[in-house]
């Protein structure tokens, strides 16, 4: 019964979606297409085109996606960081063991599920490498594909590997928490500096823009991305840690 209803619903949904998509022109070059529609009172170019063309002037970052994420739509990114922060916090709240349940599962047989020595050794070697790779990704966020989120995730994956190979691997919670908070505070502080100095929140061209397509370019974008990288890395690690500790 449920299956039939679901199928029917999806069929109707597909029908209308199909009809809508039919109206799209896939791969159409809308950025450079000329509109001669007289209905619009003021003609404004597509935002994407504006970003592509003015990016070098305004942000001096060779990766346009990065400059959109961090600079043009930096407010979104602030929200995004907040969402991750929220998820980590909420996870901590939900997974915190209440004392009653604590007594039931008090068996600490750590030796049985322990991985083999090869795994342990390999992960010990790989850990700094992955860590550095993550750092590389977020430091070069304005030059190459990648950035704070990606780099942070890679770092978290390094910690995940350590959690998997060492069942008693522990991280220092207060340090991670402080990193999380400090990086968040720094992000907002950068925004507030712009507000105090120029009356513009999240103004990122406060420092010299540097030479295009080099590490020291794009104003504050790399710095913000480094902060984001730290934040995402510590948050995701905390998430993974919460799962591991409270399962």
């Amino acid at each position, binding site marked *: 019964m449920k299956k039939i209803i679901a199928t029917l619903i999806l069929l109707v949904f597909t029908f*209308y*979606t199909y009809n*809508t998509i039919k*109206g*799209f022109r896939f791969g159409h070059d*809308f*950025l450079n297409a000329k*509109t001669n*529609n007289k*209905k*619009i*009172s*003021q003609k*404004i170019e*597509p*935002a*994407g085109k*504006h*970003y592509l063309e003015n990016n070098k002037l*305004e942000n001096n970052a060779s990766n346009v996606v990065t400059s959109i994420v961090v*600079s*043009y*739509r*930096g*407010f*979104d990114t*602030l*929200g*995004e960081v*907040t*969402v991750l*922060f*929220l*998820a980590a*916090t*909420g*996870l901590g*709240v*939900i997974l*915190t063991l*209440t004392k009653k349940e604590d007594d039931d599962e008090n068996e600490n047989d750590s030796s049985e599920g322990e991985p083999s020595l090869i795994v342990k050794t390999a992960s010990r070697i790989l850990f700094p490498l992955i860590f550095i790779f993550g750092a590389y990704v977020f430091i070069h966020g304005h030059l190459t594909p990648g950035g704070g989120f990606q780099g942070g995730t890679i770092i978290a994956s390094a910690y995940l590997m350590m959690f998997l190979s060492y069942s008693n691997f522990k991280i220092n919670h*207060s340090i991670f*928490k402080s990193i*999380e*908070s*400090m990086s*968040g*505070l720094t992000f*907002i*502080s950068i*925004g*507030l500096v*712009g*507000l105090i100095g*120029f*009356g*513009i*929140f*999240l*103004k990122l061209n406060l420092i010299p823009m540097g030479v295009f397509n080099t590490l020291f370019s794009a104003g504050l974008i790399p710095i913000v991305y480094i902060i984001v990288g730290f934040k995402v890395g510590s948050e995701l690690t905390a998430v993974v840690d919460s799962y591991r500790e409270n399962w």
Partner: protein
Amino acid sequence: MVDYAILLIALPLFAAFLIPLVAMVNKNWPKYIPILVTAFNSVLSINLLLYLNAHNGTPFIVKIGGFIPPFGINLFIGYLAIILLMLISFVGLMISLYTINTVKDAESRYYMLFILLLMGVTGLVITGDLFNMFVFLEITSISAYSLTAYKRDGLSLEASMKYILIGSLASVFVLIGIGVIYYSTHTLNIADISNHINTVPKYIKMFSLSMLLIGLAIEAELFPVNGWVPDVYQASPTPVTTIFSSIVVKATIYVFFRVLFTVFRADLTVMNFVMGLGVITLLIGEISALKQVNIKRMLAYSSIGQVGLIVIAISSYSSMGVAGGIYQMINHAIFKGILFLGTAYMITSVSGTGKISDLKGIAQKMPISSFIVSFSIIALLGVPPLTGFWAKMMILSSVMSSGHQIIVALILFATVVEAVYYLKFIAVIYDSSEITNSFKSTIKFNKIVPIVLFALTIILFSVVPQFLVKFQDVLLKAANELTNVSSYISIVLGS
């Protein structure tokens, strides 16, 4: 210089990130941070109101990152936003006062989530960018998911699970809608989309509209998609429930209509559909509330009904109706603030489980809060000359003049149903036969003060006619901001 309006968002965010550090220094400090933040926001929003009054009431925008509107994200602040901001910060302040020493094993994370929830709602109200709105919607809902599960017992986890399930669907629909509308207009700025919306083929526009409508209807608690609401309201901690009912819904309703009115320039067919949804929501909510035994669940259904009423009012699309809807938003926020906080205060005093019958005869022990709760119920029912009546008058007259006589009759019918269960509740708390429950009586000032302040607000709105007349003026201007698309566009994009 109104760029400091961004502090409405930046400061709570700053405070939320600061809380873990503060908690490391002293475990007791974090609980005062929400009070500081909401107090600051209250002052700031009053300041903005004064600014707006001094500048002919023309709404202004705040550019973030210094980019000109269609290319950067901007905030849009007018009377409507300020009314909602004041509501958010005032109710938030009251609830944070109430929350001190309330949440069991109160930890810093609760206050972080609390502040971020308020921040998300604030962002929803003032943002001028469609995708940014989505981000704030997600901030709001994710903090709401976590706060719902905060008690960590079976009920709250269950509620949180349902909320997440439906909320994810909502975000998916919103995202699809935003994608389609972006593809058709190549912009995400609300004003810019609105400027281009007439060039979009009708089929695609309507598809996008229905996607956004579904997604936002879920958040705005409209009928067929509000299954999560009663559970979430019942299971979450009472201060959080109060925020859901008083603030979050109001902000989502605002977003709902901002999208319909401004982004899509919705026409009468859409508005009739929405009005139908509102009517069904109103009826189902009120009728379902009739046989509830749990007080919070009853209030939850009542909130659903009130949402229906507000939606009916705003979807009438006349300035009077929209103004009435906004007025009812304010009223309902205050009434539900009193009702949730007051009943929670009573329930904690009798150590009950939240059943209505637990509160039998409580009025003899707690006369002040019982009186205020009854008073707010009477005001909520729209007994003249209290404030609920004027809002209802505005709503009814506008719905009537838009030619929906039957809907007026249905609204009145729903109010009668509402009166039945609310008065039954009053009858229970004033029942003098005997008190079955043990009662531990200590007047807690931090609990009674918010309730009393809320009640004073009702009296202020009801009794001072000069204030009322001026207030109506502001309401009409706020309504105009919501309905007048061309002025929105010209303010954001420049003429």
